[in-house]
């Protein structure tokens, strides 16, 4: 169904080419929205949709863009899409829009978007660009979900807002780790993910 190359375009960013843990892009928002699982999930989905769409649009007009102002054109495309998505969310999913609040607007400044537009969409066909955007968005979402899972579980004893660590644990003296709620802990966790990822892939390579 998919050729080897397109498969790599789509699945590469999930593992060997992951935007967060290999290219170290989009770290700032990964720290901000990962205290709980739900905003991390919605953020991951929003970024996936926007990066895929922006990739397609920029790829379609790539031959007409004047080279000197290409970054500005990319930025205009991304900003327009983000504004559009936030307007649509406010009209049809008001609760989610409120939950994401400022982070939604901050997608504009997410380095993954500019990175993919500049590195891939400017030189590739729309379909490949779409797959690349999808793969990178999902790769970003994956790391966000891993970090948010650990932070919400150990920081609040909950997952998606539901209590998962039973009350009996607390009765025995178990306590939630307040450190997990601090942004610094997200950075340490991302570091741990990078470590595990490198260790695994180096072994595979040998």
């Amino acid at each position, binding site marked *: 169904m998919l050729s080897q190359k397109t498969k790599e375009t789509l699945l590469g960013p999930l593992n060997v080419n992951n935007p967060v843990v290999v290219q170290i892009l989009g770290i700032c928002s990964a720290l901000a*929205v990962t*205290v*709980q699982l739900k*905003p991390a999930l919605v953020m991951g989905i929003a970024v996936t949709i926007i990066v895929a769409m922006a990739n397609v649009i920029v790829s379609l007009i790539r*031959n*007409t*863009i*004047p*080279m*000197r*102002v290409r970054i*500005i*054109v990319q930025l*205009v*495309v991304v*900003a*327009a899409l983000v*504004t*559009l998505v936030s*307007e*649509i969310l*406010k*009209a*049809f999913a*008001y609760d989610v829009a*409120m939950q994401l*609040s*400022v*982070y939604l607007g901050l997608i504009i400044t997410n380095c993954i978007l500019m990175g993919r537009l500049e590195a891939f969409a400017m030189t590739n066909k729309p379909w490949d660009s779409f797959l690349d955007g999808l793969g990178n968005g999902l790769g970003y979402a994956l790391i966000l979900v891993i970090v948010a899972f650990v932070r*919400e579980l150990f*920081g*609040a004893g909950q997952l998606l807002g539901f209590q998962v660590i039973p009350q009996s644990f607390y009765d025995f003296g178990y306590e939630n780790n*307040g450190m997990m*709620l601090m942004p610094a802990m997200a950075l340490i966790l991302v570091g741990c993910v990078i470590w595990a990822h490198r260790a695994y892939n180096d072994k595979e390579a040998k």
Partner: protein
Amino acid sequence: MKLNTNSNIYTFVYMTVVVIIVAVLLALANQALKPLQEANIQLDKQKQILGALKVDFANGNPEQIYQELVMDTIRIANPKDAAKDSLEIYRFSIEGDIKYVLPLSGKGLWGGIGGYLALNADKNTIYGVNFNHEGETPGLGAKIVEIEFREKFENKKIFKDNQLVSVAVLKKGKTCAAGEEYQVDAISGATITSAGVSTMLETNLAEYAAFLNDRPAEQVIVEPIKEEEE
């Protein structure tokens, strides 16, 4: 002839066209979605007010429940600037009792915070409260919206010896001069948001002073109970 995509004229025209297209697109989207968005904002406001009044709307139509309970809107002149919009106070009838709902707005750590304070007919005892925020830290400051924090305000008082004192949000262990009835515990780890809630209550209640200080006949019934408690 092939277009020179790097010429100044081309760049200028290209950018102008791109910006105009995007502007038109966004303006259209905004216009088309505005009625839906405003309906959402209105519905959200009604849900928040119902939350402050502790009315369960999970199994019903919030808009309908709101319309059934609301009596009228009292408007008082804005004490800071009479030319500005008047302040609104909503009067509700809950199980035969009159409740007043006061909209609140203030500042948190990262952005604005707001809420609705529901007072009993004596304009002194807090019946319920609801808070909202633009972007407080999830798991910390954002906890002000949770019931565990909000229910601490119930049955607290805002008047002491006919003086408006508001309710202070204080760190555990600290006590306010007015006494237990006028304070609630802050959220640990969210010092600035908690202080923001405290300041919001104080400044907003002061603005409503003209309304709150006007406590006629009902006060006669309330006073003896208050003395017993003291």
